[in-house]
C-alpha cells in the first residue's frame, strides 16, 4: 500500500494544487451542499463530468501499458451510445439497451485488438481506422440525427444519484477499482507490463501476448462503451457527431499526466484516473472562472504544460535535490544511489 501511495503522490499533489488554484479564482469551488436528495457543488460536477474521460483513461492505461494506443475510444463512445439509444427507443428495454452498447464496445475492441495483435498493424494506424469510420457507423445507427429518447431508466446512468452521489461518478469509481483489482490481484498486470516492455522476450517466456493484446483493446472498448452510455444518458440522446469527440486525446493526456509512459510497461490505473480528474478540474474551473471562451484552450494548455514539465523525469531529480538542499538534508541524489548500486 505505501508503495502504491508513493506512486500516485505526484498526481495527488497536482490535483490538490489545481483545486487550490481554481479556488483562488472561484472561491466556492470546494463547497458542497445537500439539496433535494443529492450532493451539489463544483467538486461533485468534476466527479460527474470527468466520468467519460476517467473511464476511457482506465482502458487507455492498459492499452498504453502494452506500448499501444487506442485512438478509437471517442468513436466507440458514439457507437455504443447510438446502440443504447436505438435499442431503448425501439422499445427493447433497459437491459437489452445496455447489453447492445457494451457488446458494441467489446466488438470495437476485438476489431482493434485483432488488427494489432494478429495482423501486426501499428496500434496508432489500426485504431485510426475505427476512429474515422466509427462515427460514420454511429451515424448510420442514428440516421444522422440526434436520436433522443425519454426513458428514465437509461437517463439514470447520466443524471441519476445513489446516496446523493451522481451515478456517472460511481460508475467510473467502480470501474477503476474493479480494473485495478483485476490486474493487481491476478497476474494480468505483470503480464501486460511484460509484453509492453519486451513483447518478444515475453512471448519466448511463454506469455500469450497475442491474446493479452486483444484483451486490453477489448477492455478499452468496454470502458468506452460505458463512457458512451453515460454521455448518451446525460443528454437523453445519442449525438453521433459529437459524443466523445476528441475525448481519446483527453484520455491519452490523462494517462500521461498519470505518469504512465507512452513507451509501455509500468502503469498505474489510479494515477491515470487522477490525471482525468486533474483535466476535469481544470475544465470546470475554466467554466466557473468566467473568462472569455477564447482563453479556454490557452489556459488549459498552459496548465497542462506546467504539470507535465514539473512531472518530467529530467526535472524531478533537480526538484528533489532543490527541496533537500532547502531543508538542509544530506545530498544523496537518486542517481548517485543508482550508480552506487551497480
Amino acid at each position, binding site marked *: 500500500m505505501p508503495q502504491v501511495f508513493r506512486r500516485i503522490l505526484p498526481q495527488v499533489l497536482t490535483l490538490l494544487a489545481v483545486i487550490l488554484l481554481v479556488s483562488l479564482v472561484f472561491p466556492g469551488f470546494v463547497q458542497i451542499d445537500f439539496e433535494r436528495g443529492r450532493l451539489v457543488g463544483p467538486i461533485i460536477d468534476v466527479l460527474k463530468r470527468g466520468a467519460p474521460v476517467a473511464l476511457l483513461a482506465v482502458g487507455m492505461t492498459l492499452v498504453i501499458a502494452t506500448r499501444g494506443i487506442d485512438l478509437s475510444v471517442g468513436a466507440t463512445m458514439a457507437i455504443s451510445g447510438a446502440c443504447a439509444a436505438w435499442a431503448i427507443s425501439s422499445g427493447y428495454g433497459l437491459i437489452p439497451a445496455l447489453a447492445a452498447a457494451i457488446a458494441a464496445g467489446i466488438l470495437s475492441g476485438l476489431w482493434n485488438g485483432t488488427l494489432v495483435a494478429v495482423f501486426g498493424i501499428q496500434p496508432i494506424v489500426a485504431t485510426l481506422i475505427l476512429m474515422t469510420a466509427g462515427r460514420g457507423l454511429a451515424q448510420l445507427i442514428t440516421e444522422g440525427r440526434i436520436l433522443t429518447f425519454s426513458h428514465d431508466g437509461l437517463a439514470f446512468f447520466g443524471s441519476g444519484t445513489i446516496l446523493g452521489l451522481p451515478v456517472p461518478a460511481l460508475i467510473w469509481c467502480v470501474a477503476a477499482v474493479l480494473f485495478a483489482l483485476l490486474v493487481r*490481484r*491476478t*497476474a*494480468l498486470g*505483470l*503480464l501486460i*507490463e*511484460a509484453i509492453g*516492455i*519486451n513483447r*518478444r*522476450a*515475453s*512471448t*519466448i*517466456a*511463454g*506469455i*500469450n501476448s497475442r491474446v*493479452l493484446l486483444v484483451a486490453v483493446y477489448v477492455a478499452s472498448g468496454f470502458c468506452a462503451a460505458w463512457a458512451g452510455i453515460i454521455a448518451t444518458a446525460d443528454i437523453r440522446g445519442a449525438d453521433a457527431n459529437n459524443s466523445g469527440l476528441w475525448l481519446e486525446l483527453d484520455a491519452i493526456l490523462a494517462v500521461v499526466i498519470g505518469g504512465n509512459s507512452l513507451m509501455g*510497461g*509500468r502503469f498505474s490505473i489510479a494515477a491515470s484516473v487522477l490525471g482525468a480528474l486533474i483535466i476535469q478540474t481544470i475544465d470546470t474551473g475554466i467554466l466557473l472562472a468566467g473568462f472569455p471562451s477564447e482563453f479556454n484552450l490557452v489556459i488549459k494548455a498552459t496548465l497542462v504544460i506546467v504539470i507535465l514539465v514539473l512531472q518530467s523525469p529530467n526535472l524531478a531529480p533537480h526538484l528533489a535535490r532543490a527541496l533537500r538542499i532547502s531543508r538542509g538534508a544530506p545530498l544523496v541524489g537518486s542517481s548517485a544511489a*543508482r550508480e552506487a*548500486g*551497480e
Partner: protein
Amino acid sequence: MLLTIRSLTKTFPGTLALDAVDFDLAAGEAHALLGENGAGKSTLIKCLTGAYARDSGNLHLDGAPISPASTLEAQELGIGTVYQEVNLLPNLTVAENLTFGRQPVRFGMIGQRAMRRQAEELLSGYGLDVDVRRDLGSYSVAVQQIVAIARAVALSGKVLILDEPTASLDARETEMLFDVMRKLRDRGLGVVFISHFLDQVYEIADRVTVLRNGKRIVTEETAGLDRLRLIEHMLGRELEAQTAEGAQQPAEPADPSARELHFEGIGRRGKIEPFDLSVGRGEVVGLAGLLGSGRTETAEVLFGVHPAQVGTARAPEGALDLSSPRAAIAAGFGFAPEDRKTDGIVADLSVRENIALALQARRGWSRPLPRAEQNRLADEYIRRLDIRTSDAEKAVGDLSGGNQQKVVLARWLAMNPRFLILDEPTRGIDVGAHAEILRLIEEVTRRDGMSVLVISSELEELVAVADRVIVVRDRSHVAEFTGADIAPDRIMRAIAAPDVAAPDEEAA
C-alpha cells in the same frame, strides 16, 4: 601505414568490449575485420569513427594523432563509414543524396544543374548507369550502397569502412560492389571490410584481422592463410588443457533407446534444413557452427519461435506440439536466447519478476504466484546462481550482462524443464560468470537429469560441457561427434567446408 590503432580499450558496464586492440591499415589495402557476434568488431568501428568515446589507446591517421569526437569529425578527418542499412535518404534524388550538406549554391539558391553535374562527376568511375535526378529509393540496394560509398569517399577520401555491405546483396550485386572496392583500393584508399562470409573475405581482402572476446587474435595476409586456421582464430582453441579434460569425462551412455526426446525431419524453409536429433536424459548436446550457419535457427525451430514446417517431435509419453513457445514450454522445454537484451530479459521488470515470469505465464493470469513464493524463488536463485544485485527488486536492465544472463537462466531453472536450450549462454560475460554458468549446466544435467542443448561459438566451451557435438553448416546439420571424437580440430574441420572435413565425419 595509413591508419594505426594502438592499445584501444573500451569497457561497458560489466564487459570489456575491447581489450588493448592493435590494428593497422595500409593505403591501397582491403582489410577484412572478422569475428563472431560480440567479438568487438562494431565497437572497434564505433571507437574509430567517434561514435563511442574510447577509454584508452591511440589512433594515428597519416602519422598524426587523431581523436574524433563524432562521426562528422571522423568524416572530415578522412574516415568514412557505410553501414549495412544504407543511411541515406531514399526519397531524395541521387544527386541530392550525393551533394547533401554541400550543394552548389548560386545567389542563395541551390543550382540544380551544377548539382547534377557535380553528382555525375562523383559517380563517374563507379561504373553505374543511373540517372542522378531520380529518387535514390527507386534503385536497388546495391546501387544505393555504391552511392553511399561514393558519398563517403567524396567526403572523406582516406579510409572507407564498410560494415557488412553484402548482407542483403545477391551474388551479382556483390560482384559489382567488389569491383568498386577494388577500384577504390587501387586508387590508394584504405578499405576496412566487415563480413562473416569467408568466401568473400578470401575474394576481396588483402589482409585479415580476427577479433575474439574484445581481443585482437591475429592479423595475417589472406593469401597465406589457411581457411581452417582462420576459423580456429575466430572460434578459439586456447584452452587445450580444458579440452583434454573434457575428453576425459566419462562419456554418457549414448544408447539411442535411452534417449528421451526424438526429433525427426524437423525443419523450416529458409531457416534450417530438416534434421534428426535425439537427446537423452541428462545429456548435453553441443551445437557448433559459424554465425548464420543455422545454429540459432535450430534452437528457434525446436522452441516454436519459428515453428517447424515439417517433421515430428516425440517424447516417451507421445508426440509433442512445438508450434509456439507456449506449446514448447508446455512440453517441458526452456530456451535462453542468444540476444538476451531483445529476446531474454524484460528490462524494466525487477529481478524477482523476471525470474517468476515464465512460471507465471505457465500458471495462467488468473493464478498469480503468491508474492512470498516469488520472493523465495528470487532469493533462492540469487543465492544459487550468485546473481550480483543489490536486491531482488532492482530492475534487470540495471544489471551487468552476465547477471542478466543468470536471471534468464534462473527463469528457466525455476520451471524445472526437461529440455533446456541455451543459445550462446556465455557470450559477452566475464570470465568468472562464464565458469559459473558452465558449472551450472553440469549440475542440472548430472544431478537433475535435465537435457541441455548448448549452442556456442567457443569450441573449447562445447568440448568442456558437451557429451555430443553436432556441427551446423549452410543451414544443415552436417556432422556429429561423440566421446573422444569431440575435439576442437575435428569440429573446426567440419565447420570449415566440405572439402576440408573428412568424409567419415560427414557420414556420422
